[in-house]
């Protein structure tokens, strides 16, 4: 267990994939030692200044609140507070049919709304035993990766802006527009799409989407290379991000920190590979892994993930199968819209689904998917009928915000904003 790579045995699949001239990977012990060295341990007591960072603060990405105890500029203690954006999504879910829950999931992580829709639909399909047709799975994969790209580009801009460069934020927003335009074309909405349906997706790909999508994914890797030129080799960024906020794989497990933060700690854990859903088991892609567990490596992981996302979308567009885009499952899914207007059975199905809802069996399921911010689990307990008896969204930001004390105590206030941005917390996601 001395080696970080070996500690993630089952998932560490591309250990031998990196070239031999790569810098030596730190072991878990080395990382722990480095973490202890970079953190300043200060005694509580003495001249402690308490600051409430948030809920209204430029770099808490919403209404996250951190109560900081500072000795000079060093954080002695940190207490995260969430809940300012609580909307009672789980309670609302208990009073809605499965179809009606999908728009609620948009509002969890509004930066990657489709991934949230998708996660809920995967769980509901597992409960109902719906088999998703191939075309729908491919469309879902495309939309999921587009939302990952949009999320990571936004993340990059915000992260860099937190380190003081406002121009870069605007550049990232400009490039995110291409993705939002694609979403607008695909779903009709730019932010909250409600595009996934139980058993498939809401609509087929529109005409011209494929060409436009190809253009964007040809163009984005060039942009990603440009971001890396600006950021990766920037001396100030390197000094601000290297060895800051070290969070080893053990810490990640203990605090349930998942996603890019975990992968930056040397664990090749990606539910797209480990518990494949949609079309991910038919697509060839790499899991981005870095080994130094700091802010800089989290940036590198996300950059690689964006490249891989472009690769995944390209493969999906190449291998896009024909067929229906939603399951022909009268008991659980909505029919295709074009059938509704000319086929009486489909019309009956439509009425049935809209007015009564999908009839789920009794039982409980838990399904986790890899959303851009980490692992999102959805627990559904059904007592039969169209409405779930209990839904729980295990959202990544909830735990990432909770882990802030472990991530940032001993660092400086300036580092806190970098670390907080690097674990990617969105308050809609964390407050539910």
């Amino acid at each position, binding site marked *: 267990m001395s080696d970080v790579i070996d*500690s993630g045995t089952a998932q560490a699949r591309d250990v031998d994939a990196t070239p031999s001239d790569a810098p030596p990977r730190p072991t878990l012990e080395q990382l722990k030692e480095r973490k202890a060295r970079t953190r300043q341990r200060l005694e509580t007591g003495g001249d402690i200044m308490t600051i409430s960072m948030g809920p209204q603060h430029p770099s808490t990405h919403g209404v996250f609140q951190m109560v900081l105890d500072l000795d000079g500029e060093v954080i002695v203690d940190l207490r995260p507070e969430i809940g300012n954006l609580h909307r009672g999504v789980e309670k609302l879910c208990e009073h809605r049919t499965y179809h009606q829950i999908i728009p609620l999931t948009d509002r969890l992580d509004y930066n990657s709304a489709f991934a949230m829709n998708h996660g809920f639909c995967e769980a509901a399909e*597992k409960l109902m035993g719906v088999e998703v047709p191939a075309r729908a799975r491919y469309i879902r994969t495309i939309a999921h990766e587009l939302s990952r790209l949009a999320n990571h580009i936004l993340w990059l801009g915000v992260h860099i802006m937190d380190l003081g460069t406002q121009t870069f934020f605007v550049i990232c927003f400009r490039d995110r527009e291409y993705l939002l335009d694609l979403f607008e074309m695909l779903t009709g909405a730019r932010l909250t799409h409600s595009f996934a349906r139980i058993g498939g997706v809401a609509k087929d790909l529109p005409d011209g989407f494929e060409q436009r999508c190809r253009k964007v994914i040809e163009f984005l890797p060039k942009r990603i290379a440009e971001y890396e030129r600006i950021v990766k080799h920037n001396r100030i960024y390197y000094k601000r991000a290297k060895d800051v906020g070290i969070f080893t794989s053990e810490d990640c497990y203990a605090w349930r920190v998942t996603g890019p933060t975990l992968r930056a700690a040397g664990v090749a854990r990606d539910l797209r590979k480990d518990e*494949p859903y949609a079309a991910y088991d038919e697509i060839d892609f790499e899991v981005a892994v870095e080994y130094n567990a700091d802010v800089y490596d989290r940036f590198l992981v996300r950059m690689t993930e964006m490249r891989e996302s472009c690769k995944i979308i390209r493969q999906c567009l190449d291998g896009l199968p024909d*067929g229906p885009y939603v399951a022909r499952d009268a008991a659980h899914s909505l029919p295709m819209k074009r059938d509704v207007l000319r086929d009486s*059975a489909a019309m009956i199905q439509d009425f049935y689904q809209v007015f009564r809802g999908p009839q789920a069996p009794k039982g409980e399921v838990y399904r986790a998917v890899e959303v851009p911010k980490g692992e999102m689990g959805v627990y559904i307990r059904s007592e039969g009928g169209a409405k779930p008896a209990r839904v729980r969204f295990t959202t990544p930001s909830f735990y990432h915000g909770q882990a802030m004390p472990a991530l940032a105590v001993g660092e400086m206030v300036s580092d806190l904003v970098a670390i907080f941005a690097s674990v990617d917390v969105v308050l809609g996601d964390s407050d539910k």
Partner: protein
Amino acid sequence: MSAARFVQPPRPAGSSTKRDRTAVRAATSLAPTLATAAAKLRRRFGARLLEEEESFGELTFVIAPGDWMRVLAFCKSAPDLGFDQLDCLMGDHLPERADTPFAVLAHLTSHTHAHRLRVKTFLPEGGSLPTVTGLWPSAGFDERETWEMFGVVFQGHPDLRRLLTAEDFEGFPLRKDFPLEGIVGGRVRTELRGKI
């Protein structure tokens, strides 16, 4: 286009893919590592595991509240189980169970063996459980949320305050008898009108 399609939908035309997906979808048999883990749990705790349920490829053990800490600690530390991550700890309310209407569920994940397990316990009104924040610090927010939403107390929790709702909120919103609409729980602060 007969009514038969309602009952028995035909297989979708586009479902022929590169690989047979039904194996992934409807996996009812457990992963071998999880079977080993379950056997080990059964050997260790025997009749203390009140119920065992296997559905949708997921394994659930129901235990008594008194065994909560011991079973979870074993799940974390035993090498064949190796549940190093608490994926989610959550509450549930089942009013039809008159004596023990509250359930607390822990979803465990193992990074070493890549398997998942659900441990469940049922509690009476006003029941309490020991905290597992000592095993997995990530349980801190989960337990706070479970307490505020269902009223299940976690003994020994370092900071058991309301998490998502306001400090002066009254009631447990995720209980089934809590209404969905209306001014409930909190209060409208008319006395502060004009002052802030």
